């Protein structure tokens, strides 16, 4: 017994040390910087700075855009996941691959490619022009940022919902039919409730990166649209005010933790995982 315990400790030690140094301590540093000023004295000014007109505006815009793109992702992903789950493809890994494959082309380049597709004389407008439709002025607008978010994070919504759907025992659906439920009733009372863990996990996985992005807004939103991510990034790389940047990050983390708590409540058994 004692021996077994020692092997366990031996195996877990490297990871626990690693997690402490590279996960917990860094997070502690963010809190330390966020809650002190340059002299090292305690202050909540850095966190309270989120109330400032410009920061508040960036935060609200971030929340707005990420909520909208999460919603769009969900509306696009659910039917897609249902179709994929009904296709009877027993190559589960193939479906996952199709969605992960684009990641092998650099994320920045893929997002940049939307510039080419969306700009004034871009591909999209040329296609619209071909059908004598009015051109869309998308690039450097919030709409373009939403599109970039949906494009980048859609797989994170599809995969957990798809996994939740394929896990449903067909006989459960049959049982509902057997008990008199029609197709729509079966979906509303059985299929949909059983996929809620997947949906919640999908929402978390889309909402968090969308809320905190600074790259998509920079690449597709032009220089005028500032999201909270852009503000924080600039505090660290240009303005050099780490205390303010950390303080604003703490605000972000409050949202993230809130999100994680909700997902933990709905997904107790880790059913909504991506794989």
């Amino acid at each position, binding site marked *: 017994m004692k021996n077994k315990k020692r092997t366990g400790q031996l195996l877990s030690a490297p*990871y626990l040390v690693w997690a402490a140094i590279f996960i917990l301590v*860094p997070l502690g540093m963010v809190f330390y910087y966020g809650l002190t000023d340059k002299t090292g004295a305690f202050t909540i000014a850095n966190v309270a700075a989120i109330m400032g007109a410009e920061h508040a505006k960036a935060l609200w815009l971030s929340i707005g855009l990420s909520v909208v793109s999460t919603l769009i992702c969900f509306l696009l992903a659910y039917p897609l996941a249902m*179709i994929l789950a009904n296709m009877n493809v027993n190559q589960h890994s*193939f479906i996952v691959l199709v*969605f992960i494959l684009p990641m*092998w082309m650099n994320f920045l*380049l893929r997002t940049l*490619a939307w510039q080419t597709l969306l700009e004034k004389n*871009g591909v999209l407008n040329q296609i619209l022009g071909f059908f004598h439709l009015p051109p869309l002025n998308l690039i450097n607008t919030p709409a373009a940022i939403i599109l970039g978010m949906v494009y980048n994070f859609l797989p994170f919504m599809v995969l957990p919902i798809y996994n939740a759907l394929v896990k449903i025992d067909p006989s459960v659906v049959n049982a509902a039919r057997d008990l008199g439920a029609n197709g729509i009733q079966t979906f509303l009372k059985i299929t949909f409730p059983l996929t809620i863990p997947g949906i919640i996990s999908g929402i978390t996985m889309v909402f968090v990166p969308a809320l*905190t992005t600074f790259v998509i807004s920079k690449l597709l939103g032009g220089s005028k649209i500032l999201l909270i991510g852009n503000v924080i990034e600039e505090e660290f790389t240009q303005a050099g005010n780490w205390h303010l940047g950390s303080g604003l990050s703490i605000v972000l983390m409050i949202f993230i933790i809130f999100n994680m708590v909700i997902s933990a409540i709905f997904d107790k058994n880790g059913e909504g995982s991506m794989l």
Partner: protein
Amino acid sequence: MTKTGKKNAVKTTAQKIYIGLIFLFLYAPILTLILLSFNASRVRTKWGGFSFKWYVSLFGNREIMQALWNTLFIAFVASLAAAVIGTAACIAVNRMTRKKRAVVMGITNIPMLNADIVTGISLMLLFISFGFKFGLGTILLSHITFCIPYVMLCVMPRIRQVDASVYEAAMDLGASPLRAFFKVVFPDILPGVLSGYLMAFTMSLDDFIITHFTKGAGVDTLSTKIYTEVKKGIKPEMYALSTIIFLTVLLLLFLVNRPPKEKIDKQNI
């Protein structure tokens, strides 16, 4: 019968169109980039005819080749280290009591669930405060950190599936614990370790945000190199390189997935 048949046909066609549109959406930028890599014009908004010249000049571009080397090196080493540490951690965590396991897994999931930007700046603050020299080393440490959760995500379910009695049976038959592990348990969890490794590799390769905050001046991965080029305009060689990477992966996947497909074809005939 024919009525429902017709309805079904309409339904499946609609479904196919829907899937088609989504995949067009997901893959249109990739097609665009591939096309741009063959564009003779240096400006991305103008089609200057078909050309291979960026593929030729790519190999003469030392900066890009260095960034490529850095990217691959980091992805390879970080995912390997993450696979080893993560697998060992999974085995250990699986033996822990329920409460302890919940705490450790909670901490583990932080880098995956937290915003990349927060992970990035937190590591940056750590490296600065403890006097790390920014460079390949700091990028590597950061990548290992965010790769481990992905490995554990893939390995954990596998470990849970492994029947503890199999391991005990092996020891009962005289194998040492280590031997029992490598002979009996490891083969069972290997697929999980491999997919975890692959996942970690992909995540490392595609990462920009965390690298952005933890790299030193003068050290670039492909991502950070592209980011600095955004304002001046992306060098077309970059398109050529990413096309090569993408098509190589596509080809590899095709080769790996081919044998079962052939079998199905034969069965249909």
